[in-house]
């Protein structure tokens, strides 16, 4: 009997090469970090159950789930608006999975596992915003898109979820991007092309930022 191993392989594993890319001799203007192996559950209110879902979410997470394009930080998860009466629960370490969320939320909401359906990329650096302007039609000016803002939008004709997390320790803005897994490599290359002129620092991490 053969010995089967189930190695989890990120959709960016082939394309992502750790190190620097693009312009050299300058401090990298853009940092790209892929976050691997996360749990991502889509929560959608059942018909007429939006208020009940809000209550259940508050009980479960201790904070109100977003009812507008925002990302909310809880003690151990990020709740990201993904459309009317629906949000994502992003977490690590099996804290919020289909199994653990169902008892709390499945009465007012339907749940769908998206943990493998997306790649998650953290984008920061002094040129992050100007690079994103090549990919995103959204206005990311800090007054328009402050910390905690989220958007269900498109980049390169590909649906993405974009939100601004807390600033990095050096004060730089951090943008988080969820992209469909089968589009991830394509968008990754597009992003590298867009960022190359500023110099790119590429890494991956098992930790949510």
């Amino acid at each position: 009997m053969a010995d089967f191993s189930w190695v989890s392989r990120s959709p960016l594993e082939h394309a992502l090469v750790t190190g620097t890319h693009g312009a050299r001799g300058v401090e990298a203007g853009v940092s790209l970090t892929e976050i691997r192996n996360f749990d991502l559950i889509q929560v959608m209110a059942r018909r007429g159950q939006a208020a009940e879902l809000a209550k259940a979410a508050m009980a479960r997470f201790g904070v109100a789930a977003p009812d507008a394009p925002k990302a909310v930080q809880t003690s151990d998860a990020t709740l990201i608006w993904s459309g009317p009466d629906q949000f994502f629960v992003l977490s690590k370490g099996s804290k919020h999975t289909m199994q653990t969320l169902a008892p709390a939320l499945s009465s007012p909401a339907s749940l769908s596992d998206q943990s493998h359906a997306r790649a998650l990329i953290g984008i920061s650096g002094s040129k992050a915003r100007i690079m994103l302007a090549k990919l995103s039609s959204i206005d990311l000016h800090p007054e328009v898109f402050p910390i905690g803002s989220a958007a269900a939008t498109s980049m390169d004709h590909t649906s993405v979820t974009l939100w601004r997390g807390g600033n990095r320790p050096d004060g730089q803005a951090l943008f988080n991007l969820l992209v469909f897994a089968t589009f991830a490599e394509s968008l990754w290359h597009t992003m590298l092309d867009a960022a190359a002129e500023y110099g790119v620092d590429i890494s991956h991490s098992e930790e949510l930022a």
Partner: protein
Amino acid sequence: MAGAQTHRLDKGGLIDRSASLNFRFDGKTFSGFQGDTLASALIANGVKLVGRSFKYHRPRGILTSGSEEPNALVELRTGARREPNTKATTAELYEGLEAASQNRWPSLRHDVMSVNQLFAPIFVAGFYYKTFMWPAKFWEAIYEPAIRRAAGLGRAAGVADPDHYDKAWAHCDVLIAGSGPAGLAAALAAGRSGARVILCEEDFTLGGRLLSDGGTIDGLPVAEWLSRTLAELAAMPDVRIMTRTTLFGVYDGGTYGAIERVNDHLPSPPEHQVRQRLWRIVARRCVVAAGALERPIVFAGNDTPGVMMASAMRTYIARYAAAPAKRIALFTNNEDGWRTVEAALGAGLQIAAVIDARPDVSAAYRSLASKGGFPVLHGSVSGVEGGKDGVRKIAVSLTGGARAEVEADGLAVSGGWNPAVGLTSYHRGRPKWRDDIAAFVPDGAPPGMVAAGAANGDFGLGACLSQGFAAGAAAAHDAGHNGKAGTAPVADDEAFSLTPLWHVAGKGKAFVDYQHDVTASDIELAQREGFESVEHLKRYTTLGMATDQGKTSNVAGLAIMAAVSGRSIPETGTTIYRPPYVPVAIGAFAGHHRDETFHATRLTPSHHWAAEQGAVFVDTGLWKRAQWYPRAGEKDWLESVTREVKAVRGGVGFCDVSTLGKIDVHGRDAGAFLDRVYINTFSNLAVGKARYGLMLREDGIVYDDGTTSRLAEDHYFLTTTTAKAGLVMQHLEFCRQVLFPELDVQLTSVSDQWAQFSIAGPKTRDLLKEIVDPAEDLSNEGFPFMGAREVALRGGIKARLFRISFSGEMAFEISVPARFGDAMARNLMLAGAPFGVTPYGTEALGVMRVEKGHVAGPELNGTTTAADLGLGKMMSTKKDYIGRVMAGREALVAPDRQVVVGIKPTDKARRLRSGAHIIPKGQIPGPGNDQGYVTSVCFSPTLDQWIGLGLVERGRERIGEVVHAHDPLRGEDYDVELCNPVFYDPDGGRQRG
């Protein structure tokens, strides 16, 4: 070695004399300075002849100093970077620049095509419509190539552009076009008010006419005011100044297009940088401070090299310290033209004479003339003597009828100024006529836009500053910013008195549109022939249709038409203005989307494993799919595919089918919802079972198909075809949100969550037993045909297993979370090794589906009904569903419809090809007896011959009939037999076993 810059002034100019640059024009080496344009550097070197005209190959020089230039078009750069029709007046000089003149042979000075001038009578307006009407076949063979060679612009590089372009978005409260006094004042006001500002300037230096015209602002010389203002703007974090950027269009909802020439001023872009960038700017308000364009006067010989716009001449003198001529005559109909005289005298150049068409000249200029010792002639220029070496002598008709001659090597012309009304008119706006300046000015603008300063017809420096400032402050206020704007910069207004003069009658060609060689007599001819409407005039004479879009010619053309048709200019009207304001390279619109990155691509979870196996990939929509897996020694695709099919039919194989659309359908009413979108019933599907479903469009035609499984009471897992995945999701959301909002249903795409593999062949169960947890019962009883449930796999992960078959074999589809897709492919190879498992691609998949008679894309082609596909029995009669009523229409249930049938050549050795038409045997093929066509074909390794499916009239009633396949595209005719579409295992024993 470059020659001396014979026409470079000793001092002045915004050029860096310490940075000398060598460049080549038509193979000859010259030198210029940093800060020069190609045009100013040519002028500094005394070059007057720079091109040949479009139709008549007349020698042409430099007319303007900006993007409105009609004459001085060159091929810039060489090899793959060669770009035709580049304006020498805007091309920045760089070390090693190479440019060549266009539309001449063998050389610019000796152009044999200038004989066209002798044939000028046939090249008049409407030439194409009047000439070479017959014989028709001569057109393609002789006339067109000959004319194309004779009349034209530059040559394209002919090879792929090696440079990169990209596109970007920008957002602001106030967008400003132009950095002249009005634009800078607007930026100051808006920026101080706290607005986010973007200012676009097409030039590489900020300041607009301030750079050429000088003056005093706020008591300071303009240069000082300019540097102070730019410093203030640079200190505002939310004011963004974009030079080398032309605002070229305005679109709905406050979206603007701009082209930034990021690296056009360098020989080639630095590594990782783009050549040009296309900007889409979203702005709440826009201030158009794009200035005005000086317009020529139409007179005989007005295209002689050395005849130049007066404002351009002082730009070359003041900004570039380059003298277009050493003894200059001015022909003007307005006060502003005289400023060129001041500039020329200031630079130590000689003034030969001023020819002023107005009855009076101001006292100040009269005394300037007497001090300068040059005559002021009241009258107009009626002819120019000269040629490719430039102007020699100017003929003047004096008011009162006498004639005079002036010796000069350059003629500055000012016919007044036309506000740049393009941007304000791009939403079908029609500018209005203003008599005092004899020019069109904006009459309203697209929402949120306003014109200020010269673009609004107010030319004085003081007016530009105050209007620009007010417009900037108002725009910021409208966008919600009310910070202290302070006070507007102050300057005096220059006098502007003008007596309109458009055309001086005389002998010889008088050009209106220089680039398209349209003359005053062409316009007169068009009027005589009835083409009086401006839109007719434009198309009949091609006035204003060249790459400059008539920036220097349109208004003069209208004025001449107005005069000959006895109407006023406003009565004559303008043509519709359309973007782009300047030509924009297609490459910039394409941006990143070219070659391999033409569109986004999707990769299956096992893509890189398949690549390791040497799979050949095929583009299927956005997807790259493994088409087949060639092995060493196989001579072609058919051999590989045949092996793969045989391996599946005789053993076991697997294929990544993750490209299918997958949708989670949740909710109390999920079953009822599916009943309405499918023709068959899903509410009665048992949990743990799958069912094939077919969707119609509301018009009764088949939309999509796939299997849908019920995983829980309120949870279905729906699959779509690869091609329609996105559209079906959109359709289902429409049904959910618009048609049936009363149902409790939630839809989520899980296409990317699951890696899905089809495992097929008689040894499928053997393979699965290796990899599935032994506790799972995979027997026919424990996991019957169309079963669907979660199973545990060895090694600790869960999978979903579906007993469905597309190949007709004993088969399962297995889904694992996508990040395990790569491992799944490897583990299937491992588990299947004892049974000779074979990965197969989409070709083998297609062969097996044709053998099994399953319909796919070529049959679900947007014209077929469920009954056409042989699936009519699935249509429920007990419920309403999308498309039900329309599917019952007479034509859609007619007995003579073309329906799916099997097709095989009677000659077993013959290849069947899709697209062949089916004709009754013994008849001559024609539209009247065309009974359908072959939709899908394959070589069937199982039957050892080519087989296919087709849509054939009454096909199902004609099984066994021999008909004729007619393939005019490939020139083939042969007999085929209509047969049961299920070629393989028609009773289905294998997939159920």
